[in-house]
């Protein structure tokens, strides 16, 4: 719980982007804009949530790409189902997400394999499964689900409500023992072990949650697009890691949180709007994103140095 410090940089960047946007376009600081932008960023936020937890554990999860695709694929092939059936299918999708994630965690712990490689392999396996379920983009999700995705409740979109729920959940989760164990293991595995943390279980929990949130992201995405895609997830993996890093979470683990990752996801999403409004080619979007990514890491390590310098006590 490092406090506000690490969030200053991403918050500042986001405010800057919003300011640029607001100065060149009307209606930026409206409810409508909030609804739209949150909807655009929400899928990434969900994937980044799981990624945050795994990175806090000191690992990385590349398989979220495959899981996102698979979730949309399964959902889109059950288009005709009624609400109860869909609920069942949704539960199944989430179970698959969590299950694959837990398998990742188990493989990493029991076989002592590197997270990068294991999740690279499961990314391929799960992504391949998505292609088998839904060979090409298409399918259809129930109309009422898409309506929910586009509709509002008390003026706020599904996305905004989801984000609020997510933040509430995080406020609770980060205070649980599981979360503390995950952070401890990510901070220093040896110390965590000596202090009694079951390292294997913390891995299973972290990666399980990551898979779950990737699946959740897929479900949300279908509410926005109305269909499924067996490859859509691939474009979310590295941006999710980027969002986490921009948000101030360090790749080595132990430090960081969801608020930063959500800010990071918003930043990455809004860059496109800013580029558009500045009337420059949309192709500049990735350039800006890449630059922000590098600068964020530098900012984080500089603030680390500053904090380290404060511990003068002998």
């Amino acid at each position, binding site marked *: 719980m490092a406090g506000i410090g690490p969030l200053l940089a991403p918050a500042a960047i986001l405010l800057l982007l919003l300011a640029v946007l607001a100065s060149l376009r009307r209606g930026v600081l409206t409810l409508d804009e909030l609804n739209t932008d949150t909807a655009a960023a929400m899928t990434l936020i969900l994937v980044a949530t799981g990624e945050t937890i795994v990175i806090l554990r000191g690992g*990385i999860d590349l398989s979220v790409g495959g899981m996102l695709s698979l979730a949309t694929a399964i959902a889109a092939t059950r288009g005709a189902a009624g609400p109860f059936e869909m609920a069942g299918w949704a539960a199944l999708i989430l179970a698959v997400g969590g299950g694959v994630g837990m398998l990742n965690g188990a493989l990493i712990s029991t076989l002592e394999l*590197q997270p990068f490689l294991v999740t*690279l392999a499961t990314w391929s396996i*799960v*992504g391949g499964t998505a292609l088998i379920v839904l060979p090409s983009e298409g399918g259809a999700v129930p109309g009422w689900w898409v309506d929910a995705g586009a509709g509002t409740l008390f003026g706020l979109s599904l996305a905004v409500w989801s984000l609020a729920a997510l933040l509430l959940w995080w406020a609770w989760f980060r205070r649980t023992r599981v979360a503390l164990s995950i952070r401890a293991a990510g901070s220093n595995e040896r110390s965590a072990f000596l202090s009694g943390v079951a390292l294997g279980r913390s891995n299973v929990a972290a990666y399980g949650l990551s898979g779950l949130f990737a699946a959740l992201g897929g479900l949300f995405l279908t509410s926005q697009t109305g269909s499924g895609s067996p490859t859509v997830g691939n474009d979310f993996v590295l941006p999710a890691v980027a969002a986490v890093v921009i948000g101030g979470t360090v790749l080595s683990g132990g430090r960081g949180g969801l608020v930063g990752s959500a800010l990071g996801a918003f930043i990455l999403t809004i860059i496109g709007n800013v580029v558009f409004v500045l009337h420059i080619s949309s192709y500049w979007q*990735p350039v800006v*994103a*890449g630059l922000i990514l*590098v600068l964020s890491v530098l900012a984080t390590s500089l603030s680390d140095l500053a904090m380290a310098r404060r511990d003068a006590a002998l």
Partner: protein
Amino acid sequence: MSGKFRVWRSTLLAYAGALLIFALTSLYSPGFAAPSHLRSLIVVSAFTGIVAIGQTLVIIGGGIDLSVPWVLNSSAILVTLIADGANGPLLWAVPAIVAGGALVGAINGAGIAWAGIPPIIMTLSTNTILQGLLLVATGGSPPAMTPHVLQVMATGRAGPLPVIMLIWLALAAAVTLLLGRTVLGRYLYALGTARMVAEFSGVPVRRVILSAYAISGATAAFAGVLLTGYSGQAYLGMGDPFLFTSIAAVAIGGASILGGNGTYLGTIAGALVLTILTGLLAIFRLSNGALLVIYGVVILFTVSLATPAVQSAVARLARRRAG
């Protein structure tokens, strides 16, 4: 067991695996082992193999290079843009572009070694930035015609052997020599094993990191040039598959993703395995999805074999059988 033997064991395992899959597939479909097919197998593997040269060096040194896709793509696009179908300009364009790739790699290396930016982030950033810059430069539609010379290089033959195979062989020999017998090679292994130890032993750590990424950028650029020859044109996204295949080739070849061990000969076996597996697509009439699943399973299998946990279990089994 001494260290030297251990190094060779994982490489040998990789080749054994490649041979096994190849043999099984040939049994099922005899045409698989025909010389013409073998040739195309090697040619296709060559591209992954050449890109994986840099990836091998970088991974042995303890890093990773995610900028390979767009360095490759940039060089492919640039070479067709500059040459505009003619052969002449290639003489200076190709070396210049390869040097450009090395420069991008050097920027990666500098960010990682001097600014302390994690390799994943640094190389991801350069990849993204390059992508954007290339899109801006080409306006989203890349030029078409590839010069004839390049096409000959990529698809032609010198006697019975494909030209590209000879190129790959020459590069492979150079890399193997570099890793096995040069100071830079030893420095890389030390760096990937324990950076602090390397630093305290006088290894010029930052220079080594810079070199590894620079070479990676150069080989990716070179592969891009060759690839335009092979496919006859440069198109957007042609570099994307190589991220997965270059990393997978290194992993299947037995190198630890954390660094400190592995050989390029192993990576070659890894590239071959990946290409053979792709061949299964046509033979067993597998869908794309099934192929991806197989890739994943093979990677999991091979890296599990190398882990100490599995190895001690295997050793125990062996002892029980013997004793």
